[in-house]
């Protein structure tokens, strides 16, 4: 049995506690974002999406980085389980990346009246990353399961972390010549309460992502164990 290594995964009983903590924190963050944080003088209610949009984006970056780190561990021959962990982290990153696109788009519509703005560097970067990581899944699922697939997925996940800064630089450069900046978002002049709300939301989203990561990992490992058992019996 090589699929699960209990020494480095959370005990199963702790996952519900983690999920409950994530739910509680998200509830707290929603409460703070809508009832405690003061209304932004410029943007009004629409600014409140900032408390979710930015933490979600940061969490997506963290997931992609985490996935690449696990991929590196896999390539260094640390074990098969890192392949699954890398995949789950990239999966979470893609989900949170899509949410970033969605919330960013809503914010752009509320602030500027357009669903999409090529001037928003971060949004454009997430679009590129979304395309890149969608191809990750297509690649992974069109290769037969085995060490080859694990290696190729890991190399592709590593490309992702190099692509992030390179693309960001490219988008910045493109802005100067190809698309001049028209709109700029006000740098967040956050008051103390606003900053507190932002921190709570960030903690909530990160905990949520980690809980989801653990739940998916648990399910995938259960699947793998079951399959092994079935093969052993047949």
């Amino acid at each position: 049995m090589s699929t699960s290594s209990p020494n480095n995964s959370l005990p199963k009983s702790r996952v519900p506690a983690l999920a409950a903590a994530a739910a509680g924190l998200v509830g707290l963050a929603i409460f703070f974002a809508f009832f405690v944080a003061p209304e932004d003088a410029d943007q009004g209610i629409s600014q409140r999406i900032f408390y979710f949009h930015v933490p979600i984006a940061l969490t997506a970056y963290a997931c992609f980085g985490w996935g690449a780190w696990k991929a590196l561990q896999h390539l260094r021959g640390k074990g098969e389980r890192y392949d699954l962990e890398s995949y789950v982290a990239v999966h979470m990153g893609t989900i949170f990346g899509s949410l970033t696109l969605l919330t960013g788009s809503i914010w752009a519509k509320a602030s500027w009246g357009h669903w999409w703005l090529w001037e928003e560097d971060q949004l454009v970067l997430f679009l590129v990353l979304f395309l890149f990581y969608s191809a990750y899944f297509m690649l992974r699922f069109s290769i037969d399961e085995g060490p080859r697939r694990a290696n190729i997925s890991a190399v592709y996940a590593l490309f992702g972390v190099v692509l992030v800064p390179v693309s960001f630089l490219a988008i910045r450069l493109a802005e100067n010549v190809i698309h001049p900046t028209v709109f700029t978002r006000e740098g967040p002049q956050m008051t103390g309460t606003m900053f507190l709300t932002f921190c709570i939301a960030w903690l909530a989203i990160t905990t949520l992502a980690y809980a989801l990561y653990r739940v998916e990992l648990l399910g995938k490992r259960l699947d793998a164990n079951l399959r092994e058992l079935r093969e052993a019996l047949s």
Partner: protein
Amino acid sequence: MSYLADVATLARKDLRLELRARDTLPAMLLFVVSTLVVFHFALPAGADEMAAHGLLWVALIFTALLGLARAWAPERESGALEGLVLAPCDRSAIWLGKSLAVLVFLVAVQVVALPAFAAFFAPVGWETVAGVALASVGICTVGTLLAAMAAASRTRELILPLLFLPLAIPLVVGGVGASVSSEPLEFLAFLGLYDALFAILCWASFEYVVSE
């Protein structure tokens, strides 16, 4: 020294195969000229030269994709990749040799495409030539590795553009910027940075793509 000799042998093998079979390069040449003709009709009358410069990059990237999709076909069709992987040479030499062969194809395409572009649309400056040269290095290094990944999957030709285009976006930015900007050096430096970063990454990781 023997590393470079291996690389040269592998690249020579690909070029000799192409010289004998002639199935990739003529297709790429015809494709790039056809695309430029299509672009003439796609651009509305009165569209400026800037737009044409942008489309040149679309033509180059898509032509490169056409060649990259065939890059590993000889190895795959005759099952030669297993043999190469087992051969007593550094596995990154396989990638470097293939990249060099692809680079020769790309240069051959550009030798036709740039004069054709100059004749059909707008004059080509040194900035564009330098941009094309630098971007070609990036296309062949990254593209060859991605093509090897795609060759291992069931959907080969279908998946290669999906893998390659997001990674090609910075190349397009650098290339178009070098062609149309008043400060092309900034963009050329960016292309150089891209080439160096991804060449190192591909060189280090190719081994894992072909081995089990």
